[in-house]
Structure formats: structure tokens, C-alpha cells
């Protein structure tokens, strides 16, 4: 049985990961913003067989609360074997281009609050001398593109941050896992036209859980995004700047 902390637990991808862990009988601590949904998810996980489920309702943009939340999780779980960080928003690029307040608030959500959480958590797992920090970044972080560079650059920050954190924590038997989903059909992407490249949150969650089981460093989900992003990263800037991707 694992003790698992999920930050952003009302995200649909996180929920489907939690369902798989629940069927294994794991103990879960859920942190999310929507209390009605947290209650629904908690009941569901208990029915599916979770060893125990505790929850904490908060907006993770309140950085001052982070230390307290993690202490709560440790009280409920004891040791923390796995942390899944799934909180974040998909920034509206067009709005970002004119509304600086909005852009800064997006960075607050997607960068600053994640950095704060990871800094606290890194120390916890380092002291434990074991654990997994799995964080949802995005393929969008691999190269900034006109269509979503605010979101992309916030995820690029996370990817680079995790790369460094991985180096730091490897001697302490801690795995740091960078999860890079492509297009996933979730409430976050409602309004987008869905096509061939879109994946279901169930399949993405199944891949994430497998990746965490096998302690992979970096997971592209679905796997074909590794090829697509390799191609996009390989384009010379002199050409890339003229493209609309």
C-alpha cells in the first residue's frame, strides 16, 4: 500500500489516477479547490477500495498555506510515498497578450505556486530518503509557440525546475517525474475542436500510473508526442519563427 498526496485532485486526469490507486487499496490525501467535487471524488475512491481518503479544500494559489497543507498530509498519511502535482490552468493566450494582470496571475498559478509546493515537498522526501514527485508539465513547455507561449513558458519553467530537482534528489533515492501530456479531452480543454491527436483522460492516467510505477524520469503521454516534440524542437529558429503551430 502506498501513501499518496494529490495536489489538484479535482483535475480529471488526477481523478483517474486516483481511481487506479484506490483499487490497489492505497491511502490518499486530496487537495483541491471545489469542495462539492472533492466530496464526490472521495466517496468514489472509498467505494473503489481506497485504504483511506482525506481531503483538504483550498486554492493552491494561497502560497502561505502550503506548509500547513503538507503537514496535514503527513499527519494523515504518515510517510508520503508518492506526490502527484496536477494543479494548474490553461492560459488564454489572446487575453494574455493584452491583460498583464491576467498573465501575471496565470504565472502565479502555474509557476509560483508549483515552485512553492515543490520546494516544501522536496525537503520532505529528501528527509524521508525515498519517494516520488510526479508533476504534470506539458508538451507545450518544450518550445514556445505563438498560439500559447504564456502557458508554454510556464510549463517550460516547471520542466527545467524538475530537471534540476531530479539531479538534486537522485542521491536521496527520490524519483522526480516530469509528465508531459499532449492534447487531453478534459474540462480544461472544453471548447477546443477535438481531432486525431486528442487522448482520453483515462488512457493518459493509465500511462501516468504506469510511469510512476516504473519510476520513469520523463513521460510523454501519449508516447507519440515525444516524436512530434523532437521534430518541433529540431526546427531551426530561422524557420520556426515563420511557422504557425
Amino acid at each position: 500500500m502506498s501513501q499518496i498526496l494529490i495536489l489538484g485532485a479535482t483535475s480529471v486526469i488526477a481523478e483517474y489516477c486516483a481511481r487506479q490507486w484506490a483499487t490497489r487499496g492505497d491511502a490518499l490525501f486530496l487537495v483541491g479547490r471545489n469542495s462539492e467535487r472533492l466530496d464526490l471524488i472521495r466517496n468514489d475512491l472509498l467505494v473503489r477500495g481506497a485504504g483511506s481518503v482525506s481531503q483538504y479544500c483550498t486554492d493552491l494559489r494561497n502560497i502561505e498555506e502550503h506548509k500547513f497543507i503538507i503537514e496535514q498530509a503527513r499527519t494523515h498519511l504518515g510517510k508520503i510515498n508518492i506526490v502527484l502535482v496536477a494543479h494548474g490552468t490553461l492560459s488564454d493566450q489572446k487575453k494574455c497578450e493584452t491583460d498583464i494582470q491576467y498573465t501575471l496571475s496565470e504565472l502565479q498559478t502555474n509557476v509560483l505556486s508549483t515552485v512553492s509546493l515543490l520546494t516544501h515537498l522536496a525537503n520532505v522526501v529528501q528527509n524521508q530518503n525515498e519517494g516520488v514527485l510526479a508533476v504534470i508539465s506539458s508538451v507545450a513547455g518544450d518550445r514556445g509557440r505563438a498560439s500559447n507561449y504564456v502557458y508554454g513558458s510556464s510549463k517550460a519553467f516547471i520542466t527545467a525546475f524538475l530537471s534540476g530537482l531530479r539531479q538534486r534528489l537522485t542521491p536521496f533515492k527520490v524519483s522526480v517525474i516530469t509528465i508531459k501530456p499532449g492534447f487531453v479531452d478534459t474540462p480544461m480543454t472544453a471548447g477546443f475542436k477535438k481531432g486525431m491527436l486528442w487522448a482520453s483522460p483515462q488512457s493518459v492516467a493509465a500511462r501516468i500510473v504506469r510511469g510512476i510505477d516504473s519510476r520513469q524520469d520523463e513521460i510523454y503521454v501519449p508516447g507519440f508526442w515525444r516524436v512530434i516534440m523532437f521534430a518541433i524542437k529540431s526546427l531551426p529558429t530561422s524557420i520556426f519563427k515563420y511557422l504557425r503551430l
Partner: protein
Amino acid sequence: MRATRATETVLSGWGNFPKASALVYAPVTPDECRSLLEQQLIARGAGRSYGDSALSSTVISTAYLNQFISFDAQLGILSAQAGVSLDEILQLSIPKGWFLSVTPGTAAVTLGGAIASDVHGKNHHQDGTFCNHIISIELLTGDGEIVVCSPEIEPELFHATCGGMGLTGIIISATLRLMPIQSTMIKQTAIKATGLEDICEKLAEYCDYKYSVAWIDCLKQGKGLGRSILFLGEHAATGDLCYRKKEPNSVPFYGPSFLLSASLMRLFNEFYFGRFAAESESTIPLYRYFYPLDAINNWNRLYGRKGFIQYQFVLPEHHSREGLQLLFNKITESGLGSFLAVIKRFGPANSNLLTFPMHGFTISLDFKICSRLFTLLSTLDIEIAALGGRVYLTKDSVLSETIFKKMYVNWEQFQAVRERYGAMDRFSSLQSRRLGLS
């Protein structure tokens, strides 16, 4: 609360006919559902009804309202949100020794959809419909209230909602009674019948078996017209409680037109019907017995891009024999029907206002969409109404308002309940507008 964004898309039912563009909202909580009630809309689960009953310009998808609420493994009582699929229920309940009291031919449907269609299964003659095993329903009505209804509490709303095609409100959650099983194996007996009359007699004769259904060869002409195989089933007493499933295969694209041609299918039927001895027994896993087509994702694409209509009707017992002969002849003469049809004998009807099953024989078959089809179907609709029978709304996309109102005699009562709970002009689908249930 977060403002729900809609996805603009083109939807169809499982028959891929008709298609309609829609704004789809996928709320993540019941509260969010409530906030969307301003507009005219219809709820949609897995989209497995065949026609236009889950199509509208605004659609509420229950995709994320799919959590379990509670499960009592001692009593076999389960509560879940409407968007949970029967397959998910089985994954949870089978290892603990519980099966659905009534199951349709696919486990891909949602709990909410199964209630709204009041689906039936191969044990209708013994156990009634899916809704006969529903203990209670939480319904979001047009007034924005979540009302609990059951056969005892708000019974009129309950009997309108069960089989009500989503027109009384949005089903949020439901509690149902499961059936204990000792094993996931089914003892199947297959018996050959020589013609339509013979199969009708056999279906009545073998009604002690829990499950019974028969397949008719629709391509056989002359001697052997209506030859069939009756499949009887009982739960085995021994075996394990493992709901194993092979990963389904997929039909990756729409089938070409020659795929289901008569000559190819005649060959298939000869092979298929030849395989069985006059009477044979076998023991097979329940997912193969109940959900053979779930092994092929998107099997509906075999009918091509234009889609198909699955047509199911029932005739009351006293008109069944001659009526079936008449209708079956019309269908085979037209040459438009599928190569196989399914026939079953229903037990008595329940008291749900728009429920489909009634005591008598039901036939179901597929028609690939073509221009001649619609004249045939309207002729059949008229004959069926005249014989006191009805057509299954869950598979319908062409029935006219006049014929519908002849077939479903409780429609006025149904409208009165909708009126009382603020459902009029609030919950509506392409189907409800066609049938004059605005």
C-alpha cells in the same frame, strides 16, 4: 464556481443517423449542472441510443458525473452518479458476487441512459426492465431542484423518468439493486427452430429459463424462411468471479459499401447456422453471452458513413403470430433489412409511462440508411400501431408524431408530469420535438 465552457461539435447517436451540430457542456458537479439550466437542452450519457434522442442544439454530457456514491456488498445495493457506465459497475460488483439484475446488450451505456431508456435484457420475461430494479433516482428538474423519486416517493415523477428519454430532467444519480451470482459463467443452450412459428412456440415453451433470445436468418427464402437459433441461458453455479475482458478490437474506419452485401452475408449465415447442432450446450463467460459486440469498438462503423437505423418493435401477445409473419414478410421482401434479426418474448409491461416492453414478441434488426428505407419504415410503423404494438424510442429516429401518440397511449399523462415539474420547453431533443413532446 467556474464558468462552464461548451465544445462545439457534430453529434449523432450510435446509428450515425441523423447527425446534428451541438454545443456540448460537460459539468463536473451537480451544482454546475444546475447553473446550465437556463437553456433548452437534453442530457447525454455514452451516446449509445441509436437515433436522435440525445441530440439537441445544447447537450449536457454526463461524462464527468461518473462517481460511485456507495456500495453495500452485503445487500448488493449500489448508488452511483448517472454518468457511470454499466461496465464500470460490473468491474466493481462482479468480484464481490453481484451482477446487474437486468442488462442490455452492451455494457457501454451509462446508468442514467439505461434509466432514461428503461432498457431491457434477455430476462425480461422473468425480471422486467432495468428500472424495475431501481430503488430511487435523484433528478435535477427544470426548476433547478434536485428531487428524489422512487416507486414510493414522488411515484409519478419516477414512472415518467424511467423510460422518459431524459425529458423530465437530468438524472444526477440512482440507487439500484443488484443480483447475486456464484460465477461469471453462463450455461448456454442453443436450440434450432425451423421457422417463425416454430421459434415463437419455442420462446414461449422455454420461458422457465432465466435468459432467452433468438436470432433469425433474414436472408433465407422459401423453405426455411424464418429459421432461427434460440439461445437460452442460466448462471452457472460454479466458476470464478472474475470479470475478465479481452481488450476490444476496433473498427478504425467506416466500412465500404460492399461489406454487408447480401451474398457475403448469405454465406455468413449458412456458415453460422450450420455451426449449430439441433441442440447444443456450452458454458461461456458472461461478457461473451451478454456483450458479444462490446468486443468490437465502433462496430457501428461497419454500416458506413451514412449510418443505420436499428428498428425494434413489439406486438402484443394476441396479435403477435400473424402480425410477425406479416411484418417479417414485408421486411424480407424489401430486401433492405440486416442479415440477422433478434426475436424475444417479453413478459408483462411495467407502469412506466413511456416504457417500451409489453407482453408479446419483439423483433429487432438493422437497416442501412438508403432512400427507399423511409417509406418502408413508415409502412411498418402504421402496421405496428394498428396491431397495438410499438416501436422502441431508444432506437428511433423517424417515427411520426401521430403514430407515436397511437403507440404510447400514456403520452398525455407523461406531458402532465413534465408540466408539473417544469420540464416543458426546458428538456427537449430532436426526437421529442419530432414526436410532439415539446
